[in-house]
């Protein structure tokens, strides 16, 4: 190999510094690998069953889509509207509550006890099965759509709060530093240092949570206020595949609609407005 600098005759062979050994990291990685291996080794799975999967997939697609019962479409649309209403209210309430909280739960903006408390709250909400949350709310507001919306709102706070503080912590620190250096308070650092960088994340979290809420079946179904998710699970339980096919089409279209909005919003924020 001819070296780039033949003129530097005095130069000795380049000795690269030794790669540092990161003990902690190595330990953590091996622990994670060990856990994964143990789980794979111990779990009782007949992987050979996978072989029949492709044929079966075709069979079920045929059951669902060869003769969809379109007569269920109006009902499906009505239930979708219901779901969207409840999901909307649930998401808006969830956003209103989680938005300020997720900033307070991020490292570096609120006292440690507040932070720990909020994180604990988010975790607790996520640890309680959705159905239990719904039953608690049900005893207050009855078997009404409002219960559905409130249950969705509470559940949303758990996840939105978590995603929110993680995103705030992941934002580039430079602008925050600049605001601090200009004498900005914490709130101002959040507004002008963090928010411009985190806004895309937040919008996509909100829209994604909205999408989840539209589909959330367990909670709404049990309350008996219906919704598209409930309809889907009911017809699935009674294996009426031709109706399930129609419902799936509706849900996919709704999901894609939300995804498209989410994409447009994010593009706006990341690339700037389209002043073309």
């Amino acid at each position, binding site marked *: 190999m001819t070296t780039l600098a033949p003129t530097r005759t005095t130069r000795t062979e380049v000795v690269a510094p030794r790669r540092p050994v990161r003990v902690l990291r190595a330990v953590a990685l091996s622990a994670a690998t060990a856990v994964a291996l143990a789980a794979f080794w111990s779990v*009782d799975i007949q992987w050979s069953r996978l072989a029949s999967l492709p044929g079966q997939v075709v069979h079920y697609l045929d059951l669902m889509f060869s003769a969809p019962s379109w007569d269920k479409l109006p009902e499906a649309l009505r239930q979708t509207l219901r779901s969207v209403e*409840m999901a909307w209210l649930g998401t808006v309430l969830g956003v209103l509550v989680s938005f300020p909280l997720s900033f307070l739960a991020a490292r570096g903006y609120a006292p440690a006890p507040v932070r720990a408390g909020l994180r604990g709250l988010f*975790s607790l909400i996520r640890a309680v099965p959705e159905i239990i949350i719904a*039953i608690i*709310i049900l005893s207050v*507001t009855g078997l009404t759509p409002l219960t559905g919306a409130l249950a969705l709102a509470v559940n949303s706070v758990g996840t939105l709060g978590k995603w929110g503080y993680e995103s705030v912590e992941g934002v580039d620190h430079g602008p925050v530093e600049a605001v601090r250096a200009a004498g900005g308070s914490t709130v101002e650092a959040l507004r002008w240092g963090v928010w411009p960088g985190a806004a895309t994340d937040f919008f996509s979290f909100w829209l994604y949570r909205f999408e989840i809420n539209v589909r959330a079946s367990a909670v709404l179904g049990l309350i008996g206020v219906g919704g598209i998710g409930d309809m889907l699970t009911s017809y699935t339980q009674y294996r009426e595949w031709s109706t399930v096919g129609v419902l799936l089409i509706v849900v996919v279209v709704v999901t894609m609609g939300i995804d498209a909005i989410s994409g447009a919003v*994010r593009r706006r924020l990341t690339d700037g407005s389209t002043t073309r």
Partner: protein
Amino acid sequence: MRAAPTPASTSGADPRAAGAPLAVPPRPAGRWKPWAAFAVVVLLTAATLSPWAIGFDADAIARNWRNGADRIVKLFSPDWSFFPRTVEPMLETLQMAVVATVVGAAVALPVSMWAARPTNPNRWTRGAVRLALNVVRAVPELLYAAVLVAMVGVGALPGVIALVLFNVGIIVKMVSETIDGSDRGPLEAGRAAGATQTQINRTIALPEMLPSFVNQTLYVLELNVRASSVLGLVGAGGLGLLVDAVRTYYRYDQLSLIILEILVAVLVIDLVSSIVRRRLV
């Protein structure tokens, strides 16, 4: 408010004449758009709050909040003696959650990159991947479970497949959007060095997306621990089944112990996730 003269106005060399008004360019049009969007949100919310749609009944809340409080209090009395019976379901759940998470994450890693603009500039393949994922996400777990039981039988396998599909949907959605929002500069440097897209993704995009990816993977692990009702549906056992069993007989004390155990799992995963993030970000 103005007191001292600006230095610029004292400088003879400055092309701008002293005291001349600043030629501030006009504010670009379209500033109303965010406000319009905000107004739409408010209107829609008001509409859903109206009695014709959902109806917000503050009255009922004021009157009946005690009912809810009673039930929450009931949940604060764990029956510790129930613990031995929760051990096995907990282990089953963790086992399957880990397997599903590992498989799901392995699948989601390349797919996330195919679904994001900076790491997959080809709009057709990207569109196809996103479409497929929309479908995967749109199908509820219960449907996966119901179909898979008939396809591959009951047990851990259909449960794990259902969870994997569910996990891939979430990880890809969240991670690909993070990639979309990230700084393009480093990727551009890779392109300028003549790297193929795959190479860029591996060497440059991967380390940048890693925190988000690890994060979502851990989040999904947590979801899998919680979403164990799916596993119950397909005969894979786990905590979900136990939750259903105890609540059938209104054993809030036993339920509260199970919740406590899930909470511990959630907190541990949260802790790991925050440590990992602090190391990686």
